[in-house]
């Protein structure tokens, strides 16, 4: 093989890569926060919310989980403007990630809630807590603790999946890589570097989420 690898471009384009890295990090931090919140809300609706709302949330979850993220992204960015909903590529990317994670998060959190026994609900009510208070203190916290590892993996999957937001020209890591390789004609090396950045990000994100788990659920983690 006569090919000579060339990484000399990295210095010149490190700024571009950093800018892309920043958007990917921003997207996953904000997207995960709102996505998890949406997932919890949907899980609450499906488990304890008003009866009429449950099938709606169910349909949303099935629809998102059974279609590709790329199509959801295109639908939001290209399709919604024809309904008069206009947004920039970054907002569209963020919205798509939130909606996507919300659906998966809903199913994961729901699985955790279902493991809560009826006795625990009743214990909460008998102590004079309202339904919402019972949900928050008696059901949600133990449920979240139980499913935190699954939720963490899903967040990492969404981060990796976010690489396709470059396709609507949101300037993330993969967008930076596309840009650099079109200038340097060093496509293979460029995507190697971008891939390694994603890998490092995935490992760091996993550690970060483990840390968040320790902070959010200190007592029972310590007991284990």
């Amino acid at each position, binding site marked *: 093989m006569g090919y000579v690898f060339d990484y000399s471009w990295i210095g010149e384009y490190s700024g571009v890569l950093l800018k892309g890295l920043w958007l990917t990090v921003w997207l996953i931090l904000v997207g995960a926060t709102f996505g998890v919140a949406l997932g919890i809300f949907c899980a609450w609706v499906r488990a304890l919310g008003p009866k009429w709302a449950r099938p709606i949330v169910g349909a949303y979850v099935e629809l998102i989980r059974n279609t*590709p993220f790329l199509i959801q992204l295109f639908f939001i960015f290209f399709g919604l403007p024809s309904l008069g909903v206009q947004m920039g590529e970054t907002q569209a990317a963020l919205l798509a990630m939130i909606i996507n994670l919300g659906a998966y998060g809903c199913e994961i959190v729901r699985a955790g809630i279902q493991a809560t026994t009826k006795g625990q609900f009743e214990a909460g009510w008998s102590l004079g807590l309202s339904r919402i208070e019972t949900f928050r203190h008696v059901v949600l916290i133990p449920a979240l603790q139980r499913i935190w590892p699954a939720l963490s993996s899903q967040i990492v999957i969404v981060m990796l999946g976010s690489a396709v937001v470059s396709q609507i020209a949101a300037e993330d890591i993969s967008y930076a890589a596309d840009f650099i390789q079109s200038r340097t004609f060093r496509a293979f090396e460029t995507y190697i570097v971008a891939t390694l950045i994603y890998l490092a990000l995935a490992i760091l994100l996993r550690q970060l989420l483990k840390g968040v788990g320790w902070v959010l659920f200190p007592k029972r983690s310590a007991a284990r």
Partner: protein
Amino acid sequence: MMEFSTWDIVRNLLLAARWTIVLSLVAFAGGATVGLVILFLRISKQKAARVFAGGYIELFQGTPLLMQLFLSFFGLSLLGVEVPAWLAASVALILWTASFLAEIWRGCVESIPKGQWEASASLGMGRFEQMRHVILPQALTIAIPPTVGFSVQVVKGTSLTSIIGFTELAKAGQVLTNATFMPFTVYGFVALIYFALCFPLSKSSQFLERKLNVAHRDH
């Protein structure tokens, strides 16, 4: 400009969906084969094999499928041949699928009680014979629901191959959008077709899982 009726759009999308199905089948069959090899390495007695398989899984599960597609596309062309998109797409999807299936199956193999290994060992079976006749047949039963469930991810994953230029459902959606300027309708139908492919798989996975749980409770 040519006029497109709704039926034209749907018909063209359905024709393109054939390639989504073919690519999914290739990725799944190839991924299962490679995944089985990775599984054997992952649970091997040799530390080097376990480390290699662990690294493989970490690499393919810890990086975006999109990057793997690009690396496959540009990496294969480094070998000096013109690489068709379908080839690069198949290679990347197979390797990616293998990493997930190997990890899913490892969980199933590890859930087989230790006594099964010990009993078959005490009867003189070697490691491969134990796997072949005792462990895998049992692991297979519990592996079916999560494996079917993962096939949904494979079908959805094929949509990314549109980005390296393979013409399947998602790519057809882009082309039709450009031709009709009706993104809402086109992507709506694209989503529906994906849904029609994936939803039955999701549901059967859940159904099989419930059936398996009931069977376990009966015993």
